[in-house]
């Protein structure tokens, strides 16, 4: 039986852990050739070995700092040079930190926008020509309930993630005629960082769990990955500009996450 994404090429940033790993593995399992890019190239190489051994797909690895436009441009070019095409672009790399808005410096705001927003803009712009020529593209960006619901103390993250959503929806409207869809996943899944945080803050873990109808936290591979696979495949061809909440229902009433901040 042919795998769903056989013959397709996917580029995923930050594929060696968390949500990126979950999405990347689901897409690789469906037979796509993989191009994975991130700062920590040793971890990326480890993950590449796993993907090749487990799914039998070709995997190319590149060390990329997505906060640098030249490196993002080079990343997309290297993928197209290596594989001759780029069908699926998963802009997963991103992060946040907790700090009061009024204490946020220009440099901090600028950095978080480079990491979470400009990286995505640059990658999408670089990928457009090949996707347009192919008359086929699947762009999958990551949003966050932090941004949608304006969680306290993560203003740069919130703003940059909402900016990504607007960017994605605009691309959906402008690029739809070229057979390119662009959608957002708002995921909620456990990660090493989240697990460490909850171990240190059991009351917060309990409070958040109570607001999740599914009664559990997500697992990147089992819960988020299959949604990324759906968005990467032909079956989602009539969906674009959408925000998909993959969070066990947490978005319905919001999630009471509130990090500790210094005064």
């Amino acid at each position: 039986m042919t795998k769903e994404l056989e013959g397709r090429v996917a580029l995923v940033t930050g594929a060696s852990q968390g949500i990126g790993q979950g999405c990347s593995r689901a897409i690789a399992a469906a037979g796509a050739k993989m191009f994975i890019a991130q700062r920590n190239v040793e971890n990326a190489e480890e993950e590449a070995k796993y993907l090749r051994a487990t799914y039998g797909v070709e995997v190319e690895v590149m060390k990329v700092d997505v906060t640098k436009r030249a490196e993002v441009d080079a990343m997309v070019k290297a993928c197209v040079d290596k594989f001759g095409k780029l069908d699926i672009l998963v802009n997963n790399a991103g992060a946040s930190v907790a700090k009061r808005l009024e204490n946020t410096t220009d440099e901090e705001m600028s950095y978080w926008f480079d990491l979470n927003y400009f990286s995505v803009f640059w990658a999408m712009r670089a990928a457009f020509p090949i996707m347009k020529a192919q008359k086929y593209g699947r762009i999958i960006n990551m949003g966050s309930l932090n941004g949608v619901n304006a969680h306290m103390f993560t203003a740069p993250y919130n703003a940059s993630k909402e900016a990504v959503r607007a960017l994605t929806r605009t691309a959906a409207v402008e690029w739809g005629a070229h057979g390119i869809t662009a959608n957002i996943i708002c995921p909620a899944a456990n990660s090493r960082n989240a697990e460490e945080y909850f171990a240190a803050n059991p009351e917060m873990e309990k409070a958040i769990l109570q607001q999740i109808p599914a009664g559990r936290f997500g697992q990147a591979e089992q819960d988020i990955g299959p949604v990324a696979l759906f968005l990467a495949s032909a079956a989602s061809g009539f969906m674009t500009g959408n925000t998909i909440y993959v969070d066990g229902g947490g978005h319905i009433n919001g999630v009471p996450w509130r990090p500790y901040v210094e005064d």
Partner: protein
Amino acid sequence: MNLNGKAAIVTGGARGIGKGVSLAFAKAGADVLIVDREGELGRETEAELRAIRPGSFFLEFDLVKHERLSEIVDAAVSRFGKLDILANVAQAATIAPILDQTLEQAKVGIDTGFLPTFMLMKAAHPHLKKTGGNIVNFGSGALLSGVRDQGSYAAAKEAIRGLTKIAATEWGSDGIRVNLVCPFAMSPGVAAWKQYDPAGFELGLQRIPLGRGGDCETDIGEAVVFLASDSARYITGHTLMVDGGQTKVF
């Protein structure tokens, strides 16, 4: 096969979106009970479904018989032995300016769409709890926009959306997911619009980023298969737009 061995009920399954969803479910491996008040069309669709999944069948039923709706769930469970998916597609509507609608006309959307959804969800609950099943309700782009003449229709759809979110919250601990799909497809209704107002239809198409109406089976049905399948196991209380990118809110 994403729905291999699953048992599903699809209301409004005789034609249009309901038919598209039923066919997609069957091709994904599910046995389907389709429910509709259109007897002839229902039997035609039943034959098409049986060619794919011989266990599928049609029940002619008018969903405004609110107090008897549990009979539909009983029929499915007695035939299939269980229930995994409930898809509430059926919906009739009065399309007219608010000022022109009588009380009876205003009730149509609620009586044919919202209340059947509500009562079928209740009847299905114990069976879905046993299987860890899910419910897919149907909204419309109309509930987000403010298109003229859709006053009582949009209200019924928003009612279904509200119900969907609360059910997701209340039944999450029962292992039941509840979601909403808002499709835009070349259903009989939309096809009629194209026929009677081709210029208006073309103008409408221009506002759709993907430049076309959806195919009931390959566009809408496939998305509903995803939502009803294990791939969407961590999605509940969600409004999934399957409308070629038209959505203006969100």
